[in-house]
């Protein structure tokens, strides 16, 4: 039981990660795939952020009476990773716009058909 409850943050991470990957693989719509990719990346952000938490620790600001602080470094790292994620999403959406212009579709199977036909 303690494995289940004590590690609840990891279970959330694993669930989100698998859900995201499943959407990426199973969805044929190019925009929905991007949503899946975002869920997948968000799960890793949560993994990092929950890693920095120390039980009983406060925000890492030096103050009297506080001796235990949470680790702020993973948060900073994830700030960078979020920026990277935003850039990736923006680029993916831009590509989808251009794919839609070129193929008049954002469905994977329709695009594939058009590529095979000529």
């Amino acid at each position: 039981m303690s494995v289940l409850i004590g590690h609840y943050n990891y279970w959330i991470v694993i669930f989100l990660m698998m859900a995201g990957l499943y959407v990426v693989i199973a969805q044929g719509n190019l925009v929905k795939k991007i949503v899946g990719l975002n869920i997948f990346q968000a799960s890793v952000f949560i993994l990092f952020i929950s890693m920095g938490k120390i039980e009983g620790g406060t925000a890492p600001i030096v103050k009297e009476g506080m001796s235990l602080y949470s680790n702020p470094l993973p948060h900073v790292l994830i700030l960078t990773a979020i920026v990277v994620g935003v850039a990736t999403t923006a680029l993916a959406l831009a590509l989808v716009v251009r794919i839609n212009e070129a193929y008049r579709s954002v469905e994977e199977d329709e695009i594939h058909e058009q590529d095979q036909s000529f």
Partner: protein
Amino acid sequence: MITQHLPVLQVIVPLLTAPLCLLAQNRRFAWGASLAASGTAFLIAALLLAQTLEQGIISYELGGWSTPWGIEYRVDTVNAFVLLIVTAISSAVLVFAQRSVTREILSTRIPVFYAVYMLCLAGLLGIAVTGDVFNLFVFMEISALSSYTLIALSEQRRALTAAYQYLFMGTIGATFILIGIGLLYMMTGTLNMHDLSQRLPAVTATRTVETAFAFLTVGISIKIALVPLHLWLPNAYAYAPSVVSAFIAATATKVAFYVLLRFLFTIFGVSFAFKTMPLNLIFIVLALAAMFAGSIAAIFQDNIKRLLAYSSIAQIGYMILGISFASVTGLTAAILHLFNHALMKGALFLALGCVVYRLGMANMKQMRGLGRRMPWTMAAFALGGLSLIGVPLTVGFISKWYLVAGALERGWWPLAVAVLVASLLSLVYVWRVIEAAYFQAPLPAHNDETGEAPLSMLLPTWALILANFYFGIDTSLTVGVASSAAQQLLGVSE
């Protein structure tokens, strides 16, 4: 002294050139600035390599923050060698690019092309030079995002779907690497590679480190395009503009391969990677699959760029095979092939770029009779093909020689036979192109203007071809550096 800051300048020079290209909005200026930046980067890489050979490891603390807290740039023989080949290929490709991009990229997008190219170069150099794993992830994303953009700059619409597919595979790979880095940080509390390598042995027996190892290996394997994670590669190389195919084929997978070397040997250490974890068996199987599946798929391709892309997948198999021996000879072969394959694939893709410049595309049909119309281009392609097969006097022979020696040293002679058989397969696909170019009558549809490619494109192509032969005959530099790099990675003193 400026030489003290060489490691960081290696990244900063191309990184700052990128916005310059974008702001100037002038094709000639953007080209000149990129070429100058790439040339400077090449000089810096050469100086760094000379320094590491002389004094050993160079450690540079970014912003003066002392290691392990600050970001460290750490250059040893391994990454100095990678920096040298990346900047050399990049400079040759840029000379070639001036004429080539006018045919393959919309003229209004050309300054953007050079800006993104510089970002990609900065990312690749950053991956190679950094000694911090999170910094490595960020640079990996910089180079990856810019290479998706470079591929999508092509005027063919299939390039868009290829870039989209590459983006997904690449992002999943990078996120896997990020998970691995996170798990390592969880166990050790450090992101510095050198520090990691010292703190990891105490905690290697934990499930977390084993999971981190698995995530990192899979993530990096996606970036390397190791079979069965290679599906993004053929389309990306086939539909990208020729210059981009040449640049990415010769550098991106090589740098990813370097990352694999760094993680397996420097950070995890050879005994964990190959004894605690059964990685060598997995790598042998996947390497053989890559060598044969890649070569056989290449034989059946009609688009020559795609043919070379599949051949790249096969060549990656050779490098992975070299690693799986986990010996000095095997690792020397892998590092040598990293360098040599960059030379041959760079040269072959540039030769194809010349064909595309004149004919608009490069399918088997277009190659017919091309030996007479474009003698210099096709001669370059034929010589590059010889190097790919591994004919003596070319670099391909040298790396295969060491690979076979590594296999025999371990007593794994079936693998040596497999290397030779796979080389025969590469003979088949190279021969198909040569046969079409020299022994088939040209298509009547070829108009008479189809002549030789301009000199500014032939020169860089031939420079790389000659390098293929130079380093195939005088191996003192490449073999010397590769074997000392292998010894450094394995922690064996000379």
